[in-house]
């Protein structure tokens, strides 16, 4: 997930910042990284869901209780995962392929690539979002009346060489796969980013959870992250975090009016 207030937020577990105070309103920044969460299958829905370790679960209960007691928690901004799509967006199983997002047909396709159906790509990413959604369902259940806002991760970096250089943060097996097959083109990674945002926006709306898009100042004309905000293949740097904080402040301010 991105960086905030000069500090990159990549903690495992939950970070509840002492509530910032903008315009007499309070909000919390909640970061949940569940990469190490065990996963279980819901026997009723057969969907995968994260099973928080007891320590994390107790913190969730703590937040719920605090939110219930503290009426000033008008908004909770959430950084829940965000890197789950990175693996899929980098994975480049041959032969080269492409897909068309109906809402972003302007992006075009790269010539000579096999076209995979949008419906197939969409169905492929939904399982990767299942854990995120199960966390949000838990949060919504814990805070039924609180305004929850999901903060989207930064857009992809166009420079594939830079991304490859930073792959040492990835799982060793995945690094081998990337070394063998290469990584996806920038355009395809951008499409995955849009698809992730579109799909999650739709699914979270059903929980009455809104989303915060990446700050426009950090994005170039084609939709990629500007170089001055690069950190690694999935995280933006502290300067990006300050832009997001400004967005949070504006969201809180507008909420006050």
């Amino acid at each position, binding site marked *: 997930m991105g960086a905030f207030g000069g500090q990159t937020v990549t903690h495992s577990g939950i970070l509840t910042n002492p509530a910032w105070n903008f315009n007499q309103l309070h909000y919390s920044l909640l970061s949940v990284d569940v990469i190490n969460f065990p996963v279980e299958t819901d026997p009723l829905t057969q969907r995968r869901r994260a099973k928080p370790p007891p320590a994390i679960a107790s913190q969730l209960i703590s937040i719920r209780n605090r939110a219930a007691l503290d009426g000033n928690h008008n908004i909770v901004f959430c950084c829940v995962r965000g890197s789950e799509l990175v693996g899929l967006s980098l994975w480049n199983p041959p032969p080269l392929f492409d897909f*068309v997002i109906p809402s972003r047909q302007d992006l075009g396709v790269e*010539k*000579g690539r096999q*076209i*995979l*159906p949008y419906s197939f790509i969409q169905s492929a990413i939904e399982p990767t979002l299942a854990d995120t959604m199960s966390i949000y369902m838990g949060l919504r259940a814990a805070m039924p009346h609180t305004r929850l806002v999901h903060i989207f991760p930064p857009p992809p970096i166009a420079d594939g060489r830079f991304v490859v250089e930073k792959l040492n943060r990835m799982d060793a097996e995945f690094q081998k796969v990337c070394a063998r097959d290469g990584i996806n083109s920038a355009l395809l990674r951008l499409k995955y980013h849009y698809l992730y945002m579109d799909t999650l926006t739709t699914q979270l709306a059903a929980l009455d959870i809104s989303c915060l898009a990446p700050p426009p100042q950090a994005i170039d004309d084609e939709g990629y992250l500007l170089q001055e905000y690069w950190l690694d293949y999935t995280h933006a740097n502290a300067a990006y975090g300050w832009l997001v904080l400004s967005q949070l402040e504006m969201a809180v301010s507008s909420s006050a009016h």
Partner: protein
Amino acid sequence: MHHPYEKLPATHFWRKAVSDQPWSGVDFLPNPKFTIGANERLVTAGSCFAGNIVRYLRANGRDIFVAEPAHPVIPLPLAKELGYGQFSARYGNIYTTRQLLELFEQATARRDMIEDFVTEGDNCYDLLRPGVPASGFSSVAEAQADRAYHLGRCRIMFESADTFIFTLGLTEAWRNRELGYTYPVCPGTVRGRYDENQHVFINYTFAEVHQDLTALIQALRQVNPHIKFIFTVSPVPLVASHEAGNVLVASSYSKSVLRAVCGEIARQYDFVDYFPAYEIISSVASRGQYLESDLRNVKETGIEHVMSCFFSTYFSRTTHASASNAVVASEPSWQAGQASINRSVEAQCEELYNDPLLRS
């Protein structure tokens, strides 16, 4: 008295070659112009009957050259739904020679890609291959991109094939009135909406089919000088005719034209052969034994007879096995899966949609 017939072999005489022979023993093509080598790239196209050729080739361990395979990440059931594996590329059924010629022209950039897409509900369909994929595309842009890729693969197919097996199906077709291109089926039957201002009926004549097939052969030999052709005529009668009169008579005309063109073309070129699938099924000498109760569809036993003859004619007899007990050779997992799909592929025939009673 001497005459030209007296020294001819038995196959030239009806009594010896047909009436005194069990039907299964008739040698329909005693002198094929060529045989098919073990490593040749076979490409198939044509009407729904051509799908049976694919099925039997695979069942006998002689897979076709697949120029447009499904991407390995696509699950096998979805690959089938998307139209992969039915033929060498995802063109669906090609009923007329003109349709095949236009496909070749598009694939080799002799003409621009024909774009005739229609949106129905949330999905978009390609009227040049309305069953590919069965559930349509998510957007017009996806349909366009998919067909552009498809044409690129067709180009590779045309350039790489060693033997092209084409089953000619129909002479009746529908064309776009303004731009002249040919549809596989009448718009409004499978997909799209019929509009008499846009869509016009045509029944191709002998001269037109001959011209189209000649043009195709000559153009294809330019990009692939060593390619050979085997033409067959689908024995399946028209499900519906737009001509005045009876569909049986119209069907007879259509098949006669196609059969005559094949005969004429086969006489012209030593790299073109005609395989008599039509005769095996439709000759009165077969006594109708291969027809289903509708007197149109071909029973599995008929297809098996046709393919048995095909294998005997063009392949080494030692490699021929009946489809029912054929074992597919061990292949890499994806190809094995692909073969598995295609063994279960039933020949899909969009032409059925011409008959409103069969649509429901």
